[in-house]
């Protein structure tokens, strides 16, 4: 008890609509530890943390912070007790500078005006002390996601937080930014802070946390020392059944090439050569994985192939149909489906309903179009069918996509793109930021499509994903293909890493044989 900085006992939270979000939860955090809180979407972990941060009030139960019983009426009470929360969606003023955001609400003043110099000094001091690098005078609008997150953390620290709740902090980060974040978290703990880390990525749990609490359906399944649990065990605790972290693939039946890319080159508007002479094929019935550190041209490759960016030179065809000069619709009509990397910006219209999101590639043709109109009945029926088949958790197809969880949003995209019955499926980061159950589902669907004879081009920053799903792997480095591995099962992570970092590369002759 004395050792526990936070102790929550028998927390029950029943929402007015009858949903039991927390059902007798016991949760404790030791001073100075990194405590991971994991569970699928809807398991109640966010609710539990909102209660701890004073955003929600429990129906019953007790909370002790530093041994004192507390009752938070609002986040202000929680902040006063040294609890700070970094939300998943950043709450920063985009037109303010980093320093202004950090001091917002507790501004240092001089003669009644905000003292900007002092704000910058405070920011730099905090930044140095906790190893969270930010640019104090930069406008938030102009900085990247990783830095925005550091600003959020500094904001919380400036308010004197000793216990930091990080709500899925890595969902929006690249692997490099994630590593930076982890370093910062370790620094924070060395300086005596306590960190509660909400996530559903088991790899991160293993990497960063000391202890882990698993929640399922509003209850705590258990709290264990991270070092004593395997990922498989944690996954089983989360989902409540055996989860296949590695995929079992039926044997491959490889057909003719579907996608042929020849000497594809793309020069960006700023004159940088992003893709250089890229040549490869994707065959029917195979998953071709593209490995590489993010930012080595994968995003552009996908966008050029799907008609969203104009290529500078080269050819690409799907079953003989040229797709490089084509519009996004023509590319789709050639048989290409696309799960986009940035699902909130590209893949969905959040205010539109699920049904509306499910028809964007097909509303203009029968059976959806009937005469002058869109046939609402067909749209609704398709919606119901896809919601069922793809297990999208929603009361109906008429609700806005914005009301869904991240995993279910991705299922909407997957449902649309898979039901288009493509010849070529381009999947970019298909499981980024979604929970274990949804990830498993998406992966199984990908493998099933491939087994049915679809050509799949898989781009993922998750190396383990590329390795477990792909039949063949190509590695991209600085816009070029630097390695081809015809048998994905026979290659090690270390070997791929050497190519991804540009340390090793194959010659054209070596690659041509297997491309």
């Amino acid at each position: 008890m004395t050792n526990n900085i936070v102790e929550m006992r028998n927390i029950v939270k029943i929402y007015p609509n009858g949903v039991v979000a927390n059902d007798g939860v016991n949760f404790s955090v030791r001073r100075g530890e990194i405590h991971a809180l994991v569970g699928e979407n809807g398991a109640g972990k966010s609710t539990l943390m909102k209660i701890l941060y004073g955003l929600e009030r429990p129906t019953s139960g007790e909370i002790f912070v530093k041994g004192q019983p507390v009752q938070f009426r609002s986040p202000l009470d929680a902040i006063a007790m040294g609890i700070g929360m970094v939300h998943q969606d950043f709450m920063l003023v985009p037109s303010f500078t980093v320093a202004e955001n950090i001091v917002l609400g507790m501004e240092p003043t001089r003669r009644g005006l905000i003292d900007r110099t002092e704000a910058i000094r405070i920011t730099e001091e905090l930044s140095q002390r906790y190893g969270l690098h930010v640019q104090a005078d930069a406008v938030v609008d102009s900085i990247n996601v990783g830095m925005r997150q550091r600003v959020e953390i500094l904001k919380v620290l400036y308010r004197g937080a000793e216990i930091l709740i990080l709500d899925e902090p890595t969902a929006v980060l690249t692997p490099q930014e994630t590593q930076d974040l982890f370093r910062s978290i370790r620094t924070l703990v060395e300086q005596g802070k306590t960190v509660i880390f909400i996530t559903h990525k088991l790899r991160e749990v293993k990497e960063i946390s000391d202890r882990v609490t698993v929640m399922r359906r509003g209850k705590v399944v258990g709290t264990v020392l991270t070092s004593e649990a395997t990922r498989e065990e944690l996954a089983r605790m989360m989902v409540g059944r055996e989860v296949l972290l590695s995929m079992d693939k039926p044997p491959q039946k490889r057909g003719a090439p579907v996608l042929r890319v020849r000497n594809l080159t793309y020069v960006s508007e700023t004159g940088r050569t992003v893709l250089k002479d890229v040549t490869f094929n994707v065959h029917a019935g195979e998953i071709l994985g593209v490995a590489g550190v993010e930012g080595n041209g994968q995003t552009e490759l996908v966008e050029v192939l799907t008609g969203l960016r104009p290529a500078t030179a080269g050819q690409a065809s799907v079953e003989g149909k040229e797709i490089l000069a084509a519009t996004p619709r023509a590319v789709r009509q050639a048989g290409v489906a696309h799960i986009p990397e940035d699902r909130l910006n590209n893949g969905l219209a959040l205010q539109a309903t699920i049904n509306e999101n499910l028809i964007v590639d097909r509303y203009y043709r029968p059976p959806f179009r009937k005469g002058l109109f869109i046939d609402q009945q067909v749209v609704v029926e398709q919606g119901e069918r896809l919601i069922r088949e793809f297990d999208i958790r929603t009361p109906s197809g008429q609700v806005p996509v914005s009301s869904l969880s991240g995993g279910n949003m991705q299922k909407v995209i997957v449902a649309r793109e898979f039901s288009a019955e493509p010849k070529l499926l381009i999947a970019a980061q298909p499981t980024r930021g979604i929970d274990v159950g949804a990830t498993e589902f998406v992966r199984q669907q990908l493998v099933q499509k491939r087994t049915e004879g679809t050509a799949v081009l898989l781009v993922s920053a998750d190396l383990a994903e590329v390795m477990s799903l792909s039949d063949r792997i190509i590695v991209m480095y600085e816009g070029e293909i630097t390695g081809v591995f015809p048998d994905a099962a026979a290659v090690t992570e270390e070997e791929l890493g050497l190519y991804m970092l540009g340390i090793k590369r194959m010659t054209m002759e070596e690659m041509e044989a297997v491309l």
Partner: protein
Amino acid sequence: MSRFLDSPTVRSIARVVLATTAALLLGFVITWLVSDDPIGAYKALLLGPVSRLNRFGDWIEESITLTFLGLAVALVFKAEQFSLGQEGQMVLGALVAGVVSLFVPLPAYFRIPLALLAAMTAGFLWGLIPGYLKAYLDANEIVSTLMLNVLAVKFYEYLLTYYIKPPNAGYTTSEKFPVEGVLPSFFPPIPGLENLRRTFVNQTNISVALYLLIVATIVVYYLMYRTPFGYELRMVGANIKFARYGGINTKRVIMLSMAISGILAGLAGAHLAMGIHRKLILNIQYGLGFEGIVVAILARNNPLAIPFTALAYGYLRAGADVMERTSDVSREMVLVIQGVIILLVTAERILPVVQKRVRARRGEDEDGAPPETLPPAPAAAEKGED
């Protein structure tokens, strides 16, 4: 019943009625402060438009114009294109409708449809220009439409002054339109009701534009919510990147949204020329340029709600006229009330935030689909329909 109350149309009407009530109360406080006869003055504002048949006519006529303008704005705003070109489209619509009415020697049943068609075409083309500039040359539509408004108004004045006005006339107006070029009364010649009809025809200019308005509202609604083009329009408005990713030709949608919106503004112009004034006058657009925006925002771009918000807003404008003419309160005060209404209703975002705060304090559900708007109060809604 609860489904009825949940429907977006009912909600947006209810919200407007609530906001209007609140604003009118505030308005009375102001009247009370500035007028020697606050009750009389306020009565003029509140009941003026229904106190005499000719004032009733003014109200309805104005509301018809406002509806067309509101539909034009709603259509283009739904695609998140902020075209402000309704004024120019309306003026050109009035111009070509007037020219056809005055100079094309055809019988009424050809001349009037031709004039309407000409007005729609003018509006379409005058919307196509900024649409093209935005879609293909990335020209900001707010700037381009405002400039095109000036062009259109000046062109109208030029033609009216130098070509249309009879050479020896004292005022800068055209001849009165011949009867073949005037929109007939909305009142059909029903046997037995000739006297009533004559009263309406003599005291008001309410024309068949009333029916045109009903058709236009339904057409816009179906266009927006039931057709492939409407789907494209809404997706471009909801997330243009998503629309492009999904294969929608976004440039075409941007261009057409502005052009089709122009058709409705053109109709508003035809109504002004052939229904209300029955001749071309200087400043025919006076005070109407941006009122369509108010009407559309009050209706939250919902086409089915627009005739109602136009009637409500038109009522306020008509009441303001009466109040100005019959009491010691100036029109400026009424503008203050208008401002308060718009402020109350367009501050729609404030409400969910307040609700969220209250709920958070009570410790209730925050995820559970917060009601987007104020739950409609049935009593208030009914009161407002009188």
